């Protein structure tokens, strides 16, 4: 196993070191496919295999034949079966220790595989690593060529598991994972037709942490105006999109989950009626943390109960059972670490996207097993809370005659509502706050917020870039230049070079500014990638190997 960067050596020929599989599925884009393939063959890491699938559409055999290389496997299929099917078909043939992906109109920079491989090798506790990508805004010319107008790193977000449960923040093309993780997380879900990458990424995060390396290792293209990307077109069907979204959010890969503590949502209902059924649907659409939903039903109710809500566990109760008895019966079936019990009839605000998570997250993040975190919308008459399951069980067992709230109080369990500062996504709240400051023209204040975020919330390269831009807008030109120069020393991008150029121009240093503009233009025109090999040592984190949730693959051993 390689853990020391000094032993990380690039083999000169294929066949040495870990094998990396690159998957590409192509459909009706022969013009760009050649560039995509070419970008793989230009990799500094030579030990890779490419599995290219033609998922129907225009023939690409002419393109493929340009690359006479044994590392390329071509699956030529006339029928269009969709991206998840194509990737699964290709995955069945992979031999690589690691897998990464490339869109048929995207490009890797030459250091893509080597950077990600080195990162994951130096940090063996991680099973997934991802870098940053340029989003290349382009205008498609009549002859099909793309004229790039801008290149922005729009997503450069450190891994946040809670955020990954809610939405994706690791672009698939930027990601490399260990192949063996798919045995646990499962393959692509072929019932989905949009957000399929997030679905897999989300499932992977049950089994490993992700490592974010803020190095730009490729680019994907976004035509200005109406985009022809299938994923973009499909998002226009709102109902279908929401169906996909909710399916993904409620997908539970097989256990055990080394990186995620499970939760149970238990509904304290005395009867099945329309309001209860609506409540179950509302919970489904207003929660994203993995859960199973327990609902008490009599034998008669169970016969007529039909619901589309996933992960639902009906628990048989008798009509005369009290709420405490019903809770007890449901708890006997709960196998999750954490339980959220909700009274029937509690109101779920339509615009609340983390109804349960606001109370669950403070417990999870601090592993607080001796605290009940009350649901924000609940009160003494409709009491609900999140709590460690064993703690709840003990309280209910010790005080069977009391309702849950009284039982918890009698057992001496502190009960309180979560404070706003304990909610998930504090980073995003601060980010929104800073952006509001910008909209109000309070640039100095925005810069201070970004500075604070860089110090306390990670994402340093991204936040420092934002800070420098805010300082520039506020007229603090020298400070802006200093701040962004630090960023450009390790990761120059088009935007960061432009910020420095503008600051230097304001500092009456037009010649320096012109040089920075030239560098930015070089990246924009594709003459350079902006990659600084020496800076990789700074940007690739180095973690100590500890309780690895997943053992590194054996084939990672090489020198």
């Amino acid at each position: 196993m390689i853990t020391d960067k000094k032993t990380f050596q690039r083999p000169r020929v294929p066949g040495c070191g870990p094998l990396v599989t690159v998957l590409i599925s192509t459909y009706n884009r022969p013009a760009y496919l050649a560039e995509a393939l070419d970008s793989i063959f230009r990799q500094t890491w030579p030990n890779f295999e490419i599995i290219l699938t033609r998922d129907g559409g225009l023939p690409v055999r002419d393109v493929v034949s340009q690359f006479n290389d044994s590392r390329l496997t071509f699956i030529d299929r006339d029928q269009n079966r969709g991206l998840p099917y194509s990737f699964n078909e290709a995955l069945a043939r992979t031999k690589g220790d690691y897998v990464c992906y490339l869109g048929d109109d995207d490009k890797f920079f030459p250091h893509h595989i080597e950077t990600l491989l080195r990162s994951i090798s130096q940090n063996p506790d991680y099973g997934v690593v991802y870098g940053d990508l340029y989003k290349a805004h382009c205008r498609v010319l009549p002859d099909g060529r793309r004229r790039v107008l801008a290149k922005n790193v729009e997503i450069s977000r450190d891994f946040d598991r809670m955020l990954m449960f809610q939405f994706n923040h690791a672009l698939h093309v930027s990601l490399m994972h260990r192949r063996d993780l798919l045995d646990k997380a499962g393959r692509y879900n072929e019932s989905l037709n949009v957000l399929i990458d997030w679905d897999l990424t989300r499932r992977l995060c049950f089994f490993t942490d992700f490592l974010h390396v803020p190095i730009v290792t490729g680019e994907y293209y976004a035509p200005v105006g109406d985009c022809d990307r299938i994923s973009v077109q499909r998002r226009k069907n709102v109902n279908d999109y929401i169906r996909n979204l909710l399916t993904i959010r409620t997908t539970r890969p097989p256990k055990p989950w080394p990186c995620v503590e499970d939760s149970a949502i238990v509904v304290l209902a005395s009867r099945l009626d329309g309001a209860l059924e609506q409540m179950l649907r509302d919970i489904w659409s207003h929660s994203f943390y993995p859960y199973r939903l327990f609902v008490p039903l009599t034998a008669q109710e169970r016969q007529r109960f039909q619901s589309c809500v996933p992960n639902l566990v009906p628990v048989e109760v008798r009509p005369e059972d009290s709420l405490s008895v019903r809770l007890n019966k449901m708890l006997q079936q709960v196998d999750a670490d954490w339980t959220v019990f909700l009274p029937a009839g509690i109101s779920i605000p339509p615009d609340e996207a983390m109804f349960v998570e606001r109370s669950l997250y403070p417990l999870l993040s601090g592993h607080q097993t001796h605290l009940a975190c009350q649901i924000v919308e609940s009160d003494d008459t409709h009491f609900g809370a999140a709590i460690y399951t064993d703690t709840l069980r003990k309280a209910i067992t010790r005080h069977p005659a009391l309702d849950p709230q009284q039982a918890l109080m009698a057992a001496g369990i502190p009960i309180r509502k979560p404070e706003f500062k304990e909610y998930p996504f504090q980073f995003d709240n601060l980010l929104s706050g800073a952006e509001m400051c910008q909209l109000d023209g309070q640039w100095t204040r925005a810069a201070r917020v970004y500075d604070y975020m860089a110090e306390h919330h990670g994402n340093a390269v991204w936040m420092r870039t934002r800070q420098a831009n805010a300082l520039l807008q506020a007229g603090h030109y020298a400070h802006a230049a200093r701040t962004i120069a630090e960023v450009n020393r390790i990761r120059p991008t088009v935007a960061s070079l432009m910020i420095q150029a503008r600051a230097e121009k304001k500092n009456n240093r037009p010649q320096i500014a012109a040089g920075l503009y030239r560098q930015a233009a070089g990246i924009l025109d594709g003459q350079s990638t902006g990659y600084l090999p020496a800076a990789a040592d700074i940007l690739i984190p180095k973690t100590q190997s500890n309780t690895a949730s997943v053992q590194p693959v054996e084939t990672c051993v090489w020198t």
Partner: protein
Amino acid sequence: MDLTRQTAVPDHGWTQHYDIVQEMGDCYATVGDYVQAQDCYERAAMLAPDEAGPYMGTGVIALQQGKLADAEIAFRVALRLDAQCSKALAGLAMIAQQQKNWQNAFDLYLKSLELDGDNLTALLGLFQVSCQMGSFARVIEYLNTYLNLHPADTAVMFCLATLYLKERQPDRARRILKDILALEPNNTDAKNLLEEAENRIPIPA
């Protein structure tokens, strides 16, 4: 090209190519490399044919090289593309000023300032033309407006003090000059003018 799409954050927006060549052109123009500057402005104009910026840049470097006819054409194109372009009006005013067409220059500077009261080039141009014409009332108004936004701009404060003296309002001139000296105690021009102002007697109201 819709430049309003450029948002407040650096990781969005899609006119970087235009922005880079245009701003690089400005840098070259500043250091006097007019060939490189012109090349940049031409590329910028091709990337964004509806933008006034490249023509403004072309006009400025033509003006700096004394090519008044070329400059005038460029500024007029810029103005046609953007009727609210204060800088193009100021450019045309500078040409009129160089041609000693004081009234025309005065009117163009005024129009420029109506569009952008913050345009320092127009403000100082208006001051210079006013001195030539001996007509100060309007320029005093604009200088005061500008100073409300930039209260510590001592160059503009000095212009205003000069005009107050010409308008025989030495008390006002003295106040401003003292403010300048509070900000810049070693400002010799302000010291000399203050000495002159101290010897003036205000006209009775």
